[in-house]
């Protein structure tokens, strides 16, 4: 049993922040708080509310590692190159006689990374009157070759895009045929079962260019040309060409191309808010009940003691999971349930035992003898003595609640809207991120949780060091 601390709150805090763990933990906490301030500026809440909306993230690469993954490999990994509609040079020739309109879009880009790009996507925005225009998309290579990627009649009217992905998994079949034919006829390339357009198109011409494992990268200036034949003078086309990189931002992306940094950053305020609020309410309520139980004794004590036995035995996590799955509560409703099931418990037992010790101290009796009322003694003399302990308990409880939320979210039972560290991990886990080596998807969100919990654990430890003189002396 811990001895009642002999220091006030202020003195305890001061001393705690003088110890090494206190400084480190405090520093980490300050960093987290800074993050909480910065996050809404970096990614306002409306970004977060689109978290579940797949279409909001289509221009990001899929399952890209963080940009700093470069440090693990020789050379640089490709970044995403986006050619926006306004980047294209547009020439429009309207034939007077037939009303046939020819539109040509052309743009160039420099590809200088040391690895093949991840995917290619062309988005076509067309406006047409009656007949869909005919569109041909061609890639111009630094070696002077031009490959036709696609010849199509886009159905969708702008602003809805016609999307044409070219990559191993989801390629327009025609594209693959074109590429195969081009590579075998122009370069005598050996055909393979599963060629990757994003590799072959950026490979040096030769026999290996169709084999994703053996093809050699060709750097240089590439061009993209779109030729459309439309049937009305008012018809128009615009394009957006995306050469997806293999890395993205500071934290990479997930299978839905979502920027994990947004998720991880928003995880901090959510985790901190949930953890701190839960810990504060739970520990403070338990402190109050514990103090009342120890100080008033008798039947009050008995009642609080029995209640804390009851709460100890209630299987709270299974019940929480049950509630989560049946009612899909928001994070605040979960918080409410957590608090409701922890009004008394372990902390009230600890606080009660400290109060019982403080109660024995003679200054408490002296206070009665000079006229202090019971309630005054409780607030003026007992609480100040247990509060430093409460602080330590709060600091140590915050991680527990952060992890409680994370656990629920991991099981897919967390808040349905907000991205949290736990839900990021859960999605990663369910998408076999471990097996596929998407390490950032696992490592970064869990690093967030671990960082936050270690900050609080160190703070708790520094309090403990100050409050337990035996650990301090010597």
């Amino acid at each position: 049993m811990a001895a009642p601390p002999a220091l006030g709150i202020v003195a305890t805090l001061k001393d705690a922040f003088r110890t090494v763990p206190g400084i480190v933990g405090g520093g980490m906490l300050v960093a987290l708080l800074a993050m909480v301030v910065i996050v809404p500026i970096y990614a306002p809440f409306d970004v977060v509310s689109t978290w579940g909306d797949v279409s909001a993230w289509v221009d990001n690469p899929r399952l890209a590692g963080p940009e700093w993954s470069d440090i693990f490999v020789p050379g640089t990994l490709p970044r995403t190159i986006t050619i926006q509609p306004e980047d294209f040079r547009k020439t429009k020739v309207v034939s007077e006689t037939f009303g046939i309109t020819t539109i040509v879009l052309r743009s160039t880009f420099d590809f200088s990374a040391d690895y093949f790009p991840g995917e290619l996507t062309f988005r076509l925005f067309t406006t047409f009157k009656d007949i869909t225009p005919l569109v041909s998309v061609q890639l111009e290579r630094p070696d002077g070759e031009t490959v036709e990627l696609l010849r199509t009649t886009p159905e969708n009217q702008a602003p809805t895009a016609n999307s044409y992905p070219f990559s191993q998994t989801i390629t327009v079949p025609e594209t693959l045929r074109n590429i195969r034919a081009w590579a075998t006829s122009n370069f005598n390339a050996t055909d393979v079962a599963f060629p990757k357009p994003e590799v072959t198109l950026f490979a040096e011409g030769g026999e290996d260019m169709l084999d994703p494992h053996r093809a050699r990268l060709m750097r240089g200036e590439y061009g993209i040309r779109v030729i459309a034949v439309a049937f009305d003078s008012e018809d128009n086309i615009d394009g957006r060409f995306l050469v997806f990189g293999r890395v993205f931002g500071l934290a990479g992306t997930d299978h839905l191309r979502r920027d994990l940094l947004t998720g991880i950053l928003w995880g901090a305020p959510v985790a901190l808010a949930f953890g701190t609020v839960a810990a504060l309410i739970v520990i403070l309520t338990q402190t109050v009940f514990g103090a009342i139980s120890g100080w008033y004794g008798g039947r009050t004590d008995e009642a609080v003691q029995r209640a804390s036995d009851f709460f100890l035995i209630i299987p709270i996590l299974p019940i929480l999971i049950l509630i989560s799955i049946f009612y899909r509560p928001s994070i605040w409703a979960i918080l409410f349930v957590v608090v409701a099931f922890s009004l008394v418990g372990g902390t009230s037992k600890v606080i009660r035992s400290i109060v019982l010790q403080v109660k024995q101290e003679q200054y408490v009796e002296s206070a009665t003898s000079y006229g202090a009322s019971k309630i005054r003694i409780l607030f003026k003399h007992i609480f100040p003595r247990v509060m430093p302990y409460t602080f330590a308990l709060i600091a140590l409880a915050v991680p527990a609640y952060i992890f409680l939320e994370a656990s629920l979210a991991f099981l897919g039972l967390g808040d349905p809207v907000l991205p949290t560290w736990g839900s990021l991990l859960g999605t990663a886990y369910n998408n076999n991120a471990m097996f596929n080596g998407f390490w950032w998807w696992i490592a970064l969100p869990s690093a967030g949780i671990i960082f936050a919990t270690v900050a609080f654990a160190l703070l708790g430890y520094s309090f403990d060091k100050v409050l337990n003189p035996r650990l301090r002396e010597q």
Partner: protein
Amino acid sequence: MAFGRYLIKRGVLLLITLVLAVYVSVIIANFGGFIDEILKGQIAFAVRTSLRADPDYAALPDDVQEEIFRVRFEGMVEARGLNEPFLPKTIRYTIDALQLKLGRAIVLTDAAGSDQIADIILERLPRTLILFFTADIIAAAFGIWLGMKMAHRAMSPMDRGLTVLSITTFVIPPWVFGIYFILIFGYGLRIFPPGGFLTTPPPTDPWLYTADFMYHLALPLGTVVFAIFGSWAYTTRNLVLQVMDEDFVMAGRAKGLSEGAVQRKYVLRAASPPIVTALALTLVGSWFGAIITETVFNWPGIGLLYFQAIQVFDAPIIIGLIAVYAVLLVATVFVLDLTYGLLDPRVRATRGA
């Protein structure tokens, strides 16, 4: 004997608490008749399926079909007691839950195909107990040993480092380490299987079977041990430090006991009751943690069962498991009381009085 009376008193109180806890869970689980609705839906589905299979039935006119369906459906609802008023129904559920007499599971079965709740749960329970009991025992033994070492060299760099490590590992739950360890040992280094409790198909030779089981047990076991040894070490360290300055320890040393004997016979012995108390909570925590830890490791104990049951809304299993959890907790607390009394002769007298 006074201590016996105390234990009986405690036992009765804990039993009452147990019943209350299960009752509360039943009410929560059935808030607004949620489970009842699910059950009714399932009954309706079953009735309809069985009727459709009958060609005579299809030939009947629609309103007659409907009438037959209604009668059968209501008969089954009645038979399962779903129409009882709230209070008797919840009480019946509670009594059934405590006896694990919850009838049939809706979806899940045990390995042999039985859909009896008791069969399913009792098949899984030993696996959970093996994993977590073994882990707790190893973690306790290692943690106490380490804690004593740390106390012995309190405030040395080794102690400080291990203290921070201990605190860090014990605030981080096993499943987080689990993810990392599976990533590293399961997929990265491929030393251990990343999940499951036996290879498929399991070996038939009993020795190989055991070896295979142990091989699958190693990683989850190691993870749980790694996640909880810290709390044993840190708690032991602090309590041992407190006891180490007591006069009777000094007396033991003065008597000529060797340092090791002083540590074992005096320090650890005297510090053990609070160590046991402080750490019963670790055990309690690991019962809960089982749900996620087992899910991560795909370890087919009651934790994973709970997760599976939840995903398919297998309500009777959920209630049954909550009851099992409550029993596990009560048993832990009761064993704690018992151990505490056996370890500290003072408690035997004072608590009994």
